[in-house]
């Protein structure tokens, strides 16, 4: 089963990284980054199928153009979570929180047109 591989790789990697971190911290972080990269490429295949299914659902509901925006928001969250997690592991909390804050601001920036459109429809409805 795939989950067994991921779990085993994670535990082994953490143990090896702990050993490396005590002597040379840089290699611990590099090892963790290598493992994270491997896990992501492992799961990318499944993510593409999930998004294909989601897209069909959205097209059925007739809200196709919003799907791209949601996809972008998910992508931003994914990437910022990945990079801020690695920075957090390396011990640099400030950089990690900066990345998260920027991701939130960027998603809000992306979502702004939708909020405005929603308010307009609300206003037209109430007249």
């Amino acid at each position, binding site marked *: 089963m795939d989950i067994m591989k991921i779990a085993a*790789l994670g535990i082994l*990697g953490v143990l*090896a990284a702990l050993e*490396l971190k005590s*002597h*040379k911290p*840089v*290699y*611990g972080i*590099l*090892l963790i*980054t*290598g*493992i994270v*990269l*491997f896990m*992501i*490429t492992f799961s*990318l295949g499944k*993510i*593409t199928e999930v*998004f294909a299914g989601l897209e069909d659902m959205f097209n059925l509901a007739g809200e196709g153009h919003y799907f*791209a925006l949601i*996809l*972008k928001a*998910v*992508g*931003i969250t*994914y*990437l910022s979570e990945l990079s801020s997690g690695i920075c957090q592991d390396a011990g640099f909390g400030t950089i990690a929180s900066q990345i998260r804050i920027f991701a939130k601001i960027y998603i809000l920036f992306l979502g702004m047109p939708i909020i405005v459109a929603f308010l307009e429809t609300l206003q037209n409805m109430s007249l």
Partner: protein
Amino acid sequence: MNVGVIFKIAAVGILVTILGQVLKHSGREEQSFLVSLAGLLLVLSWIVPYINELFDTIKALFQL
């Protein structure tokens, strides 16, 4: 992206640690620093293409 990269990183890390200790205890501080720097650059040269490939796939997948 195969598992070999991870094992190579771990191997380089262990090797550099041992070499560094040996060099340090034999009185050659600078060499031990150079060895760890070389190991770091080597591992970075392995891992940077994968990071680049990852960012491209994510950009394509999420239409960023």
